[in-house]
């Protein structure tokens, strides 16, 4: 497994994991608070930050435990471009939905979470596409 492929696994796990933690915290607060009034900003920012830190630490740990060639060659770059290209529509959809919600004056909670979900799906879908390309070819 190449350095970039292992990094993609780490990124997939930390991105999905951070979002699931965020979701669990928010849904826990819905029990006592109307969902549109749930305090979500701090949780969103902290889980996003934790995801970035976990991804960096995880990648370093994986390279330490199972050291390998750290170069990114032409195949790694092609797979990375392919994954980003295939998953870009999630960001577009999330942004478009958030834009429509803002125009319709929906609660900030829904607008922010739809855009955030778009980014999460972009990260997760992009990682899955890249890993499939590594395993099965482009």
């Amino acid at each position, binding site marked *: *497994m*190449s350095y970039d*492929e292992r990094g993609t696994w780490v990124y997939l796990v930390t991105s999905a994991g951070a979002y699931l933690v965020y979701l669990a915290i928010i849904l826990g607060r819905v029990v006592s608070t109307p969902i549109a009034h749930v305090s979500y900003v701090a949780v969103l920012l902290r889980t996003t930050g934790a995801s970035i830190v976990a991804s960096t630490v995880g990648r370093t740990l994986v390279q330490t435990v199972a050291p390998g*060639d750290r*170069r990114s*060659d*032409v*195949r*790694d770059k092609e797979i990375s471009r392919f994954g980003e290209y295939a998953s870009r529509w999630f960001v577009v959809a999330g942004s478009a939905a958030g834009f429509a919600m803002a125009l319709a004056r929906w609660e900030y909670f829904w607008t922010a979470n739809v855009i955030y979900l778009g980014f999460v799906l972009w990260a997760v879908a992009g990682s899955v596409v890249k890993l499939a390309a590594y*395993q*099965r*070819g*482009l």
Partner: protein
Amino acid sequence: MTNSIRALRFARGEMTQAQLAEHVGVTRQTIIAIEQGRYSPSLEMAFQIAAVFGVPLEQVFQHPASDAQVR
């Protein structure tokens, strides 16, 4: 597209995938992917691989369509 890289490596003093990767400037995983047919190299990389073995490109890579005769 199929290739004869594995056979050519063994015919060249049992060259390892890592050694071939070093010559071509890619990672060992890329050489593995090429040998297993999971990655088609660029034309430039294909020529570099053929040059490592000192054989024509056609002896390294084969494409079924190229066997078809032009009528």
